[in-house]
C-alpha cells in the first residue's frame, strides 16, 4: 500500500482515433497542490473529465482515495469537489439557490452555503441572479460549489482562464489559502507556468497527451538553475572539442552550455579550450527561468 490520494495507471483516451491522453501515470499525495501544466490542447481537460467519471477511459485505471473510480464512483465523488473548464451555473437563479440545488444533492447542512459564500467573498451579491455576474464572480461561485461538500480532493480546471490580472490574483490567493483552512488536496490545471509556479507544491507537465515531467516544484526549480554558459570563439568547434575530451556539453546552435559541475571540472574544461586556441570570452551561470524549462520540455508550445 502507498498513500497516493489520486493515482492513474496507463490512463489513455482515444478520440477520433487519436490518443488525446496517452499512458498517463499521475500521482498525488495528500496535502499536495498539484499543478497540472500543459499548453492548450495538451489533454488536461480530457484527463480531468475521466478523473471525475464524466468520460470513460479508453484504457487504464484511476484510483482515488485508494478506491477504483469505475467501481466506486459514487463513494469517490462524494469527497471530490470540481470545476471543469467553465463554471457551471443556473443563470435564472441567484447564488444561494444555485448552491442550494447542489446542497440538496449532497445532503450537507444548510449552514455550508453561508460558509462557502464567505470563503469566496460572494455574500454581498448572493441574492442577485447569476446571469448578471462577471466571469470572475461566476468562477468564484464555481469554486464555492466545489467546496460545498467539504471535499478532500478539489479538482480545478483552469480556474483563472479568462480573468483579468486582479481576478487571477484573487483566485490564486483563495486557492493558496485552502489547504491550510479547509485541509484539502488540490489538483489545478493551467497552461500558464507563472500561475502554477506560485502555488503548486508538485507539478505534472503534459504535452500532446503525454506526461513529460512529474515531480516537486523544487526539483523543477533545480533543473532551472543548473547550467553554465560559455561564451567562446567558434562555439560549435569548441563543443566538439569538449565532447572529444570526454566532457558533457550542449550546443543548441545559439549557445554552448554545460551542466552544473564541480569547480575543478569547469576549470579543466576551460583550460582544455584555451589549450586548443579557443578565445574564451565569458563563463557565466545561466539562471534559466522555469519558463525556459517549460518551453524546452513542451517543445516551444507553451506560453506565458
Amino acid at each position, binding site marked *: 500500500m502507498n498513500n497516493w490520494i489520486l493515482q492513474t495507471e496507463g490512463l489513455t483516451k482515444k478520440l477520433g482515433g487519436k490518443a488525446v491522453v496517452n499512458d498517463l501515470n499521475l500521482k498525488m499525495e495528500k496535502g499536495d497542490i498539484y499543478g497540472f501544466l500543459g499548453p492548450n490542447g495538451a489533454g488536461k481537460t480530457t484527463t480531468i473529465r475521466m478523473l471525475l*467519471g464524466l*468520460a470513460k477511459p479508453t484504457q487504464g485505471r484511476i484510483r482515488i482515495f485508494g478506491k477504483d473510480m469505475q467501481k466506486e464512483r459514487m463513494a469517490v*465523488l462524494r469527497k471530490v469537489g470540481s470545476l471543469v473548464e467553465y463554471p457551471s*451555473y443556473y443563470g435564472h437563479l441567484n447564488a444561494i439557490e444555485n448552491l442550494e440545488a*447542489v446542497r440538496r*444533492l449532497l445532503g450537507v447542512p444548510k449552514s455550508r452555503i453561508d460558509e462557502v459564500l464567505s470563503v469566496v467573498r460572494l455574500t454581498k451579491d448572493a441574492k442577485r441572479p447569476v446571469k448578471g455576474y462577471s466571469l470572475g464572480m461566476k468562477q468564484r461561485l464555481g469554486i464555492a460549489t466545489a467546496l460545498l461538500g467539504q471535499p478532500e480532493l478539489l479538482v480545478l480546471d483552469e480556474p483563472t482562464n479568462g480573468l483579468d490580472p486582479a481576478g487571477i490574483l484573487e483566485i490564486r490567493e483563495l486557492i493558496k489559502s485552502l489547504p491550510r483552512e479547509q485541509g484539502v488536496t488540490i489538483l489545478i490545471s493551467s497552461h500558464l507556468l507563472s500561475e502554477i509556479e506560485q502555488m503548486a507544491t508538485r507539478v505534472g507537465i503534459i504535452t500532446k497527451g503525454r506526461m513529460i515531467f512529474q515531480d516537486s516544484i523544487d526539483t523543477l526549480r533545480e533543473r532551472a538553475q543548473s547550467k553554465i554558459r560559455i561564451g567562446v570563439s567558434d562555439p560549435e568547434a569548441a563543443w566538439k572539442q569538449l565532447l572529444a575530451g570526454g566532457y558533457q556539453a550542449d550546443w543548441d546552435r545559439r549557445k554552448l552550455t554545460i551542466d552544473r559541475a564541480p569547480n575543478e571540472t569547469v576549470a579543466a574544461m576551460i583550460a582544455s579550450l584555451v589549450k586548443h586556441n579557443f578565445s574564451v570570452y565569458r563563463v557565466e551561470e545561466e539562471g534559466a527561468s522555469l519558463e525556459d524549462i517549460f518551453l524546452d520540455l513542451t517543445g516551444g508550445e507553451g506560453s506565458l
Partner: protein
Amino acid sequence: MVRMFRSEWLKLRKSVIWLLAVVSPLLAALVGILSILDDAEIIGGSPWLYALSMMAALHAMLFLPLLTGVYAALVCRYEHAGGGWKQLLSLPVSRSQVYLVKFAFIMLLLAITQLLFLAALLGIGLSLGFPGPIPWKEIIVACLGGWIACLPLAALQLAVSTAWSSFAAPLAVNVIFTLPNMLVANSAEYAPYYPWVQPMLAMMPRDEMSFGAFNVSPVTLFAVIGGSFLLFLASGWTYFSKKAV
C-alpha cells in the same frame, strides 16, 4: 431520488415553464366556448362531451404533443446553457436517477396541463349552464388517457433533448412529427400506430366520433403506446448513461 427531485424542483420553480402550461387549456377553452355558442342546439348527445371533443381536437392534436417537446427541452435547457450537465454528473448522483427525475418532471408538467384543461372544461360547462349531470367518467378517462398517451412522446423528446445541446433542434423534430397528426388522425390504417396522434385518440369521447381510427380498440392503442414508450425510454436512458459529458 427524493433529493434529486427537490433539487430539480428548485431549478424549475423559477422558470417560465409555468406560463406555458396555462396557454393550451386557455386556447382550448376559447375554442370550446366559440363552438358551443355556434351550435347552440346540440343535436342529441351531451353538451359536455361535445365541448370536450371540440376542445380536445385542438389541445390533444397539436398543443399537447408540442408542449411535451417544449417541456422536455426546458428541463434540459438550463443544464445545457450553463454547463450544468458536467457539474450535475460529477456530483455523487447516478445518471439513471438524473434521467428518470427529468422524465418525471416532464410528466408532472403534463399532468398539470391536463388538470388545467379539466378545469377549463368544467369552468365552461358550469358558467354556460350545461344541462344534465357532469359525465365525470368520460372526462376523467379522456384527461388521464391523453396524459398516458404522452409517455412515449416525452420519452423520445427527453432522449433528443439530452443528446442535442441546441434548444431549437429537438423542438423542430417534435413539430415535424406532430404536424402530420391532422392527416393521420383520419386514417384508420396508420393512426393506431402513429405515437404523436395517440393523445388525440385517447382524449376523444368515443361515441362522439366514429370516423377514422376512433373506433380502434383501446387495447391496440395501449399496446402501441406502451411499446413505443418502452422503446424510446430504454434507448434514451441507455444513451444518457454512456454519454461523455
